[in-house]
């Protein structure tokens, strides 16, 4: 082995795996704080439980596979995955399913493939898909932003605790008042009923602000050189074009472009999920192709299927094409 392996030897900037993971987490912080602020302690509970369960499960898996435990946990990859999963879940999502989802993420999504770097599918999205298929109602029941969010009110924490253990029914008849389908779902049902949509009223500021926070985090990662621009840009451009095409051919999908891009998980997906290095392809062209694929599929699934949000499935579908894209483009480039 050559002696060149030290950091920044010969003036070449080199990131450590743990630096990459921790920078991504740093970039997630503003959005996460905003989410906790708008949606209440439920989000915080999701995050805590998911991360704790994931770390424990990771340690157990590594132990069973007879690998060194500490360095693998210290690289932060599992914490990041759990964090991303938790951000995709509704605040009132019960603990039981949450644990199931986290375990699925860790075992199905990661260790069955051979651990870090070997998995074909994004672990957080595997966990999300498992949950969406297994607990469709719980996954699509979101509390209204601004409800039950006071942090200094013990009664409030009590309600959340009950909510998390016993589900939304624990609040009795009043739960209807504080829940809604996912914001997008809500929007879509209004659209489908051809109601006159006052876009501004639906523009619930939290969602837009949240998307902006993800965008800001993503830009930070770009500037730091942690991610490269190809996947997010390709994904957002493709999503925008797909949306415009929908609008052109089916004018009843009347959501203007920017709200469409700033709703839902597109921003989070573009900068934090689709860019997961392990499951994304490597060469520039394959990355562009991959990002564009996710963008198109997200919009198609979101608009034409019964699922409220398409990013997760789009990412999983494109993950499956990663080896193909890589081989295709690298060989194509050379042959």
């Amino acid at each position, binding site marked *: 082995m*050559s002696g060149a*392996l030290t950091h920044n030897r*010969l003036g070449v900037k080199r990131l450590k795996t743990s630096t990459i993971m921790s920078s991504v987490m740093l970039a997630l912080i503003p959005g996460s704080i905003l989410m906790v602020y708008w949606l209440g302690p439920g989000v915080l509970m999701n995050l805590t439980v998911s991360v704790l369960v994931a770390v424990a499960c990771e340690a157990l898996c590594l132990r069973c596979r007879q690998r060194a435990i500490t*360095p693998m946990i210290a690289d932060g990859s599992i914490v990041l995955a759990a964090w991303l999963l938790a951000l995709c879940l509704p605040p009132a999502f019960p603990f039981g399913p949450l644990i199931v989802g986290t375990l699925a993420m860790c075992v199905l999504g990661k260790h069955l493939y051979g651990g870090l770097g070997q998995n074909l599918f994004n672990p957080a999205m595997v966990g999300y898909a498992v949950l969406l298929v297994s607990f469709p109602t719980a996954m699509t029941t979101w509390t209204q932003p601004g409800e039950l969010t006071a942090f200094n009110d013990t009664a409030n924490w009590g309600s959340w605790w009950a909510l998390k253990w016993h589900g939304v029914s624990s609040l009795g008849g009043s739960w209807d008042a504080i829940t809604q389908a996912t914001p997008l779902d809500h929007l879509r049902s209004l659209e489908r009923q051809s109601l006159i949509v006052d876009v501004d009223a639906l523009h619930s500021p939290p969602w837009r602000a949240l998307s902006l926070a993800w965008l800001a985090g993503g830009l930070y990662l770009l500037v730091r050189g942690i991610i490269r621009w190809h996947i997010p840009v390709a994904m957002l451009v493709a999503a925008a074009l797909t949306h415009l095409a929908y609008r052109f051919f089916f004018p009843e999908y009347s959501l203007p472009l920017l709200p469409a891009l700033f709703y839902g998980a597109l921003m989070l997906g573009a900068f934090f999920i689709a860019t997961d290095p392990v499951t994304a392809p490597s060469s520039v062209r394959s990355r562009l192709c991959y990002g564009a694929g996710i963008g198109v599929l997200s919009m198609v699934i979101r608009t034409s299927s019964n699922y409220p949000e398409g990013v997760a499935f789009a990412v999983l579908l494109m993950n499956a094409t990663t080896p193909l894209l890589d081989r295709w483009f690298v060989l194509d480039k050379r042959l």
Partner: protein
Amino acid sequence: MNHTDIHPLSGGLALSVPTNAHIDATLHTAPLAPQLYLPLVDYSRTVLQPNVTLGQSVLAGQSVARGIIAPSSGTITAYIEHSWPHPSNTQVPTLVLQSDGQDRFIPIDHVHPLERIEAAAVHGLGGAGFSTAAKIRKACEFGRPTLVVNAVECEPGIACDDALMQQQPRAVLEACRSLIELLGVYSAQFAIEDDKQLALNALQACEPEQYAVDIVTLPVIYPSGAEAPLIQRLTGIALEYDQRAADVGVVCLNVATVLSIHNALQGRPAVDRIVSITTQDLHHSINIRTRFGTPVNALMTFAASINPAIATALQQNSSTITVGGPLSGFQKTLDTSPILATTNALLVGPADPVPTPSACIRCAECTVACPVNLLPQELYTAAVTEDIDTANRYLLDVCVLCGCCDLVCPADIPLTSWFRFAKDAKRQRQQEQTAATLARARSDNHNERETRRAQEKAEADAARRAQAAQRKESAADIKAAIARAKNRRPRS
């Protein structure tokens, strides 16, 4: 040609060297070692048959095996398994030459210049150590090739070409001219990086135009000195995975090799090269003209005697050295392994501790850094599992072992070492296959011979039998005739 004509390289790294490095461009000459070791393997690791006998005295330049010559005069005293500067840490069949100290040369006086180059055993002094005569022959098939003289010595810590150009600029340019004449081309493109100001000044002072040499300065990017990246930067042509420079009509020769060719044409065999000896921290570097076959430890002792910094470094770590530069080199125990045509530099001193590699996170930083557009992470997976077919699919052969991918990998994976290993494994496997094919061919031949022999024998037998039968028949005929005659007689 100026910078705007230089094509970009996708990948590669802008390295920075220690600014206070002390590079001694004087050309020292190592004393002739009493024992020279000549490994009998060619660049593809095929073992060569010696064509000398034990105890035979040889002259410098005399062939001892195909493509290998004695670097000095003396006696062949042994034929042993001996270590050589190769990352595999293996031993190979080696001739030991006890030099007689008189250094008598055999004259090279073949009429045909290519034969002269071949007889002088000129090998590439830059990269893989290919036979130069073969390279030129291939280029000549092309008609009038583009001649590129490669003086892009881009890896920090290696300054042998730099020193050569600074010390002997006129000899270098003359060598270029004789190569231009040999190839029948109009001019040579002399590629050199723009940070070698002293060498550039020395060359410019000798008026390169008079030698039909066109000096092309390139902005520094590592590894522009490797053949494929250099051709891409000069011509914009990215070589295909199965192409060599000659296939696109370019003959690309290292500047020291060009001088060797020139010397060969003048009748002097290629018996030495310049070796850079540099401390691991790249702060001190000296250049020593060394006979091939000189044991590395003898050379080190000499280097330590002329440079105190190297002596200190050697004291701090007298067990291992790095053969090659800090990126492309490999570690080797310091022993009597000989200096070969490809040994361009030796790094001495305490090496940096090798960090423990972690799992590849497929971040593709290596892909971005790779100068020849490979997917090192896929190659790595293939190399670790010794899956040579997959490695081939990901174009293992194209890898120039530059070490760029190592330098950027966040998981600290020693990728280049793995690729070196995979290339070696592949070569070995090919050799086994060739051996098997040969053996099969031999046994097929043998079987065929046997069958043919049996067939011939059977045919001959049949013929004999037929003849015998015929004879019997004719004998019977005669008997019958006689009998008939006898029978007839009384009647008549």
